[in-house]
């Protein structure tokens, strides 16, 4: 266990407390840089999705985790970013311009949404964001002159500085990775400065925040705008990755997936957003694995337990049927959400911290270190 002896305010402020962090993150960065040349194209594709989902996760974290404004409508901002980018691309606008325009436009919409959201707390805000997302989805489907309605729009290959960047190329992965890293660093910078502290203050006690001179309304709108803007940027990348967008891709389920990202990762940490993104993106491959390989494995296990080849065959078939069932993905989402809320409130990153602490404090680790205090007294209606 390392003890940090701080001698300067810089030690408090800096992002990487000691060289160990620099080493670990540096190694991670190197691994990511060589990844496209080492991993299969399928895994690379998933990694691109991880980057995009993680970017949205960080954006959602700014709004929900740090300012305390729950939003179940971020798919709408993703859609706005994606459609803005695709629409502008049709007119030959260069990538850099429509990329930034996607973020800017989504941010403006976010600010507009932020104003009415000022009067809403808790559950009302959640419902309002869901409604907002529905309305946006409907507008995208109806505004056919711009969005081609339910037919969808084709997204042409990215053109950066004259060179084509196809969606399967290493260059595209690096682009998404760069956006993710810049988002994370920007957010960390925000958090260690007055605006970030204002956000957290608003989450914990609006009255106190006001009495400290924080213009709560302004900061809430800012938080919405920043969160929506970053999601818009991710939307542009999302459009390129899928190369085809239509309103049905931006449903409530997608918004909930984003929430799952930060919930599973840990609602208050940036690491969590990345871990959560990995988790969500890995569910589809996992289900495929479950469908293709697992029945065979269980079948052979059954034979190994000398259950007879006919019984083993039956077991294999029923496992295969189970894994192919239509609603399995939804069921898994449901079970995971409930399990994580019940047993792992700090998320995957929290679990990682606990494991790290366990090894650091071994053999003096106490399980109650992270025990969460239940508040039966505080009523949300009296916030």
């Amino acid at each position, binding site marked *: 266990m390392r003890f940090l002896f701080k001698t300067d305010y810089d030690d408090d402020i800096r992002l990487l407390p000691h060289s160990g962090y620099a080493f670990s993150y540096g190694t991670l960065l190197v691994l990511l840089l060589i990844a496209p040349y080492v991993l299969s194209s399928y895994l690379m594709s998933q990694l691109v999705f991880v980057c995009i989902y993680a970017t949205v996760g960080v954006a959602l974290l700014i709004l929900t985790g740090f300012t305390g404004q729950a939003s179940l409508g971020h798919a709408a901002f993703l859609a706005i970013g994606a459609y803005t980018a695709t629409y502008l691309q049709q007119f030959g606008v260069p990538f850099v311009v429509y990329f930034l325009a996607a973020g800017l436009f989504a941010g403006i919409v976010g600010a507009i949404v932020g104003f009415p959201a000022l009067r809403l707390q808790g559950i009302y805000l959640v419902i309002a964001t869901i409604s907002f997302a529905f309305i946006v989805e409907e507008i995208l489907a109806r505004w056919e002159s711009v969005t081609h309605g339910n037919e969808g729009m084709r997204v042409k290959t990215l053109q950066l500085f004259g060179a084509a960047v196809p969606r399967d190329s290493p260059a595209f992965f690096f682009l998404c990775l760069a956006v993710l890293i810049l988002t994370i660093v*920007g957010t960390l910078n925000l958090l260690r400065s007055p605006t970030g502290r204002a956000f957290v203050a608003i989450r914990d006690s609006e009255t106190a925040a006001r009495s400290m001179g924080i213009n709560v309304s302004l900061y809430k709108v800012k938080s919405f705008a920043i969160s929506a803007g970053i999601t818009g940027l991710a939307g542009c990348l999302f459009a390129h990755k899928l190369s085809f967008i239509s309103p049905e891709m931006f449903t409530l389920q997608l918004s909930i997936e984003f929430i799952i990202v930060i919930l599973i990762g840990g609602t208050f940490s940036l690491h969590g957003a990345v871990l959560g993104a990995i988790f969500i993106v890995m569910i589809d491959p996992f289900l495929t694995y479950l469908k293709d390989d697992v029945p065979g494995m269980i079948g052979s296990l059954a034979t190994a337990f000398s259950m007879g080849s006919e019984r083993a065959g039956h077991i294999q078939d029923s496992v295969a049927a189970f894994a192919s069932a239509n609603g399995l993905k939804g069921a898994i989402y449901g079970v995971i959400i409930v399990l994580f809320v019940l047993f792992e409130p700090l998320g995957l990153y929290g679990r990682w911290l606990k494991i790290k602490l366990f090894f650091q404090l071994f053999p003096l680790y106490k399980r109650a270190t992270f025990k969460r205090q239940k508040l039966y007294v505080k009523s949300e209606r009296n916030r």
Partner: protein
Amino acid sequence: MSYFRAENLSLHFGGLKAVDAVSFAVEKGEILSIIGPNGAGKSSIFNLISRIYRPTAGRIFFEDQDITEVPAYGIARLGIARTFQNIELFENASVISNLLVGRHRHSATQLWQEVLFLPSVRSAEKDHRRRVEQVIEFLDLEPHRDKLISGLPYGVRKVIELARALCTEPRLILLDEPSSGLNVEETDDMSFWIQDMKSELGITVVMVEHDMSLVNRVSDRVIALNYGRVLAMGTPAEVQRHPDVVAAYLGT
């Protein structure tokens, strides 16, 4: 004219007159205590001054400026800070994070500068931390600097609440029952700090208090309230002898 003045301040909740035509003035650098039974309207007056409530009638003047219409977040920028009776600290943050929020009214950095974390932001941060350290030293909070609020006892939290208000570098501070929930030692410490705030930091203090020994020790003047109305105003001795105050609050 006086440093701070409230004229005919009223707060009505329907038929209930929480504050009824209260007028008082505070001189610069003095310590004024507001006493009275529960429900007399003392905290309501504070809430009116820090603009959590809108007054039904009346005006508030600070340094001869009419601040009745200033929004709640503007009050801090004018130099008026307050503490809350039921501590409103940020539970999940460390002590120093809470105190740094108190510096908010002095921050002049723009959003884009912060996202890029320019050197100007960094030096502003260091300046904030330096001043927060001064407050920590003033109130002997060094042992608790990096601890989370959720793990600290009530007495310490009250002091942190005061510290956060001091971090805004106020000229006038409103203390809402600073000694409630504190034991004798902690109340003694609190009385010394209040006196130090006046003598060392030059802050004008208005406090709501039930502990009469603290009021006597520390205050220059006292106002007694009952049912939202002023009963008596004067030095501690005068007010405590006043028959109305004795009848309503102090007893024989």
